């Protein structure tokens, strides 16, 4: 690879260092590919003088290259993980350059979902930094003829105090590279007291690029000779083109041709949905040409899907015994005795992601190999689906990861990248597929619609003597297996099987539901509906039995203990139960902290105002949230204040973490106020922000206070866990203010706005 190519790549991947509009990608990368080599070692880190790990390299000028192998969609993982490397390296952050990895198995898992970037890569990043530091010390000690044990580091230099010698990392890089990479066991990690960046954090590496328009998102990727495509897809999942007429389309100025895309073979997984692509010289011409297409569709069996009827089906299923996924004691025996019981149905509709950047991808297929530039959360999944669609080896697919204009889980599913690759192969040139907002809303992998039936028997103090909960929702595995109808353990664990209450009789069930649209992960996923059902039902019981909701919640959580999941399939978000036990004491603690910070029970609430509380663990993080609302006579809801307390174990970047929880309250506000996707005859009814509104500045909490609990526990998730308890606490506050119990989302169904 020539120096020029290196610079080109560097510019593209670091984003923001060149003027917007000057970015032209393409042929520069191909000589290497055409030479028949596998995925090239092409990071600057790889080419650096000292290169002890795939994640970093140090050049003789002291530049430290750190590879961000996870995608950046606004959670700051692209900054925070390199910050961990820099801390263990004792590097000067100003001399660090971050470069974005392509999709490549050598980085391990790259699917930036599930709020686990820090949790899963914290140790790896520490070891990478510490290994380089170890080698730099070895080199300095050897040069100076002193024992390595007498040398230390201090912000980008190795020092030997007694002889007052010091050497910059750049000066040592070459010599250090001659030493063997030490085994992990020999490498010493810094003590907490010596941390420079961990726990203090840093702003986004891309901050300046983000405010100047220089940041490069998928929407901004360009390549020499590229054409633009817009695809008319089957309006019903599984539909096919019967016939089409493109005469009017081809008359549109700038339109070049139309290209059919084959329908997927079930299950859909990440395949293109099929349809007719309009190829044009610019995005707008492609959009215009598409409007002129005349297509006859064969809609297929999902044409019968109707949201209202489907809701009734889910509810009916939940009113009958379903599959037991966790049981303690004998709830039925208690219910059979008669006595006071309470029941409720909860419902959450389908939800769309609506990231601000609609889906988009640029691909070039040439000489049997494909190169893709995409705002993807999962570049290795791009490699997988593109290789399958084009019939080439995974290694012959290069996926460059741009910045993402939001992801929220949608951009883990690379159907849009597959479309671009398929079209590029057919066209013989680079093709950029641009989804409209309408496409983005209508062809999503929706968060599952869910119905939950809750029932409890209570004693004289209001404490439940028996508890039954059933959830029914089309499961995410249905996109990979058309016969999948039950929730899988990975999603039942999300706030359902792990009910943290201290109860003598408990039965948790899940019922079957067949999917008629693509179901997928959306920020906090099944926790959204599970926490809504459980935390609002808890609030209902508190009110029904005359108890204070906070006291009641703490009473149900019970004493600090570790939940025993014997007999329950509980994956614990892929983490070990030893390192991340389910500790009810931590849930209690955040609940008590948030109540105290808010001044629960101490503040006066006038007519039309109210407060609600909820607590929930997800992605291994414990969160409790208090929401205060005001509702006027017209049913307009304001949110003057939100307080949220979290225990996410060690927090590497507190500032970014606070931002995630502020954002979670806004995301949750959208769910509660207006979040609803429906279908009629299999066709999604919503299309853009006029009928799928998301929260605007005048609708969101006026003030969100975030309290991070100090914790020595290992790091856990922060991107998603703020959403579920906010939603429940918001709905509980609405009840406190109005006496209206929110059981069906969104609240427009109660005449509230």
């Amino acid at each position: 690879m020539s120096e020029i190519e290196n610079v080109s790549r560097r510019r593209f991947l670091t984003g923001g260092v060149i003027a917007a509009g000057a970015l032209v990608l393409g042929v520069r990368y191909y000589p290497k590919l055409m030479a028949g080599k596998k995925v090239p070692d092409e990071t600057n880190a790889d080419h650096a003088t000292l290169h002890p790990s795939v994640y970093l390299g140090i050049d003789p000028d002291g530049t430290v290259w750190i590879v961000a192998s996870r995608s950046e969609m606004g959670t700051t993982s692209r900054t925070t993980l390199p910050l961990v490397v820099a801390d263990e390296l004792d590097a000067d952050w100003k001399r660090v350059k971050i470069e974005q990895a392509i999709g490549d198995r050598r980085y391990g898992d790259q699917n930036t979902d599930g709020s686990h970037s820090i949790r899963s890569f914290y140790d790896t990043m520490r070891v990478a930094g510490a290994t380089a530091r170890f080698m730099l010390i070895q080199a300095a000690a050897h040069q100076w003829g002193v024992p390595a044990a007498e040398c230390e580091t201090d912000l980008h230099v190795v020092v030997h105090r007694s002889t007052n010698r010091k050497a910059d990392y750049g000066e040592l890089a070459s010599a250090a590279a001659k030493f063997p990479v030490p085994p992990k066991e020999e490498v010493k990690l810094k003590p907490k007291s010596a941390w420079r960046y961990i726990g203090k954090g840093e702003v986004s590496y891309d901050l300046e690029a983000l405010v100047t328009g220089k940041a490069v998102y998928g929407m901004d990727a360009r390549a020499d000779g590229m054409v633009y495509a817009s695809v008319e897809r089957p309006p019903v999942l599984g539909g096919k083109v019967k016939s089409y007429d493109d005469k009017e389309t081809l008359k549109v100025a700038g339109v070049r041709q139309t290209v059919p895309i084959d329908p997927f073979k079930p299950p859909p997984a990440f395949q293109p949905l099929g349809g007719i692509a309009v190829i044009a010289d610019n995005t707008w011409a492609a959009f215009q040409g598409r409007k002129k297409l005349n297509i006859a569709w064969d809609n297929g069996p999902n044409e019968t899907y109707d949201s209202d009827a489907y809701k009734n089906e889910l509810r009916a299923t939940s009113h009958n015994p379903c599959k037991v996924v966790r049981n303690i004691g004998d709830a039925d025996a208690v219910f059979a005795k008669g006595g006071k019981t309470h029941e409720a149905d909860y419902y959450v509709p389908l939800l769309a992601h609506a990231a601000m950047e609609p889906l988009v991808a640029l691909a070039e297929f040439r000489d049997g190999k494909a190169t893709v530039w995409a705002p993807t959360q999962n570049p290795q999944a791009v490699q997988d689906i593109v290789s399958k669609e084009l019939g080439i080896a995974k290694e012959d697919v290069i996926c460059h990861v741009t910045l993402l204009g939001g992801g929220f889980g949608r951009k883990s599913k690379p159907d849009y990248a597959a479309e671009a690759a398929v079209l590029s192969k057919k066209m013989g040139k680079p093709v950029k597929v641009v989804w409209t907002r309408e496409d983005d809303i209508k062809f999503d992998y929706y968060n599952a619609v869910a119905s939950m039936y809750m029932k409890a028997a209570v004693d004289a103090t209001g404490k439940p003597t028996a508890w039954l909960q059933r959830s029914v929702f089309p499961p995410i595995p249905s996109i990979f297996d058309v016969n999948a109808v039950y929730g899988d353990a990975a999603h039942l664990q999300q706030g359902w099987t792990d009910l943290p209450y201290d109860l003598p009789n408990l039965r948790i069930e899940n019922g079957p539901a067949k999917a008629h649209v693509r179901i997928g992960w959306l920020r906090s996923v099944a926790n959204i509906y599970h926490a809504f059902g459980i935390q609002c039902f808890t609030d209902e019981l508190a009110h029904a039995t005359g108890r204070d909701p906070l006291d009641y919640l703490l009473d149900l959580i019970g004493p600090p203990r570790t939940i025993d999941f014997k007999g329950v399939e509980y994956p614990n978000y892929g983490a070990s139960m030893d390192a991340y036990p389910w500790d009810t004491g931590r849930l209690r603690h955040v609940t008590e902290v948030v109540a105290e910070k808010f001044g629960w029970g101490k503040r006066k609430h006038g007519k039309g105002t109210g407060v609600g509380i909820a607590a929930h663990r997800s992605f291994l993080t414990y969160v409790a949230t208090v929401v205060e609302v005001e509702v006027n006579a017209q049913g307009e809801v304001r949110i003057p204040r939100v307080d949220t307390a979290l225990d996410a174990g060690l927090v590497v970047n507190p500032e970014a973490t606070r931002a995630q929880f502020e954002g979670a309250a806004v995301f949750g506000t959208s769910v509660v106020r207006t979040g609803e996707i429906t279908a009629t005859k299999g066709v999604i009814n919503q299309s853009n922000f006029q009928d799928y509104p998301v929260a605007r500045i005048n609708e969101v909490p006026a003030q969100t206070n975030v309290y991070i609990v100090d914790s020595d526990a290992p790091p856990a998730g922060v991107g998603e866990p703020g959403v579920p308890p906010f939603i429940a606490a918001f709905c509980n506050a609405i009840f406190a203010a109005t006496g209206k119990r929110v059981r069906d989302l969104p609240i427009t169904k109660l005449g509230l706005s």
Partner: protein
Amino acid sequence: MIQLKVNGVEKSFGGEPEMPLLWYLRDVLGLTGSKFGCGIGLCGACTVHVNGQATRSCVTVMRDAAGKEITTIEGLDKNGLHPVQKAWMQINVPQCGYCQIGQIMQAAALLETKKKPTDQEIDEAMAGNICRCGTYQRIRLAIKAAAGEMA
């Protein structure tokens, strides 16, 4: 031929007069700072200044841009250090950042007419700009910080 000025530079456009300004800026001129978010003027990601007014470029056709002075994020300040941009960095507003270009252009136009906007004035001026990451609380703070600097 449609004549217009983009970031102070004279341009002429001989294409479809119905093409929205956004696509001219992005696909023809390669000024990709202005973003496509909804295409119907509902999200504000495409906001630019047309003769100083915050305008949704996705619903402003080239015919109507004729003779106008267009300012995009690339031309807001030659060093990228408009008080609003500085405040956005100081308050650490962006998460994904995609909508922030439109937010910044909208806020900059607001501060040209309202030197000390109240919370309500900020909400009214910014309600057309969606941020799905939910950075609104920081947007309010940053607008106030920028107002302080511009005062």
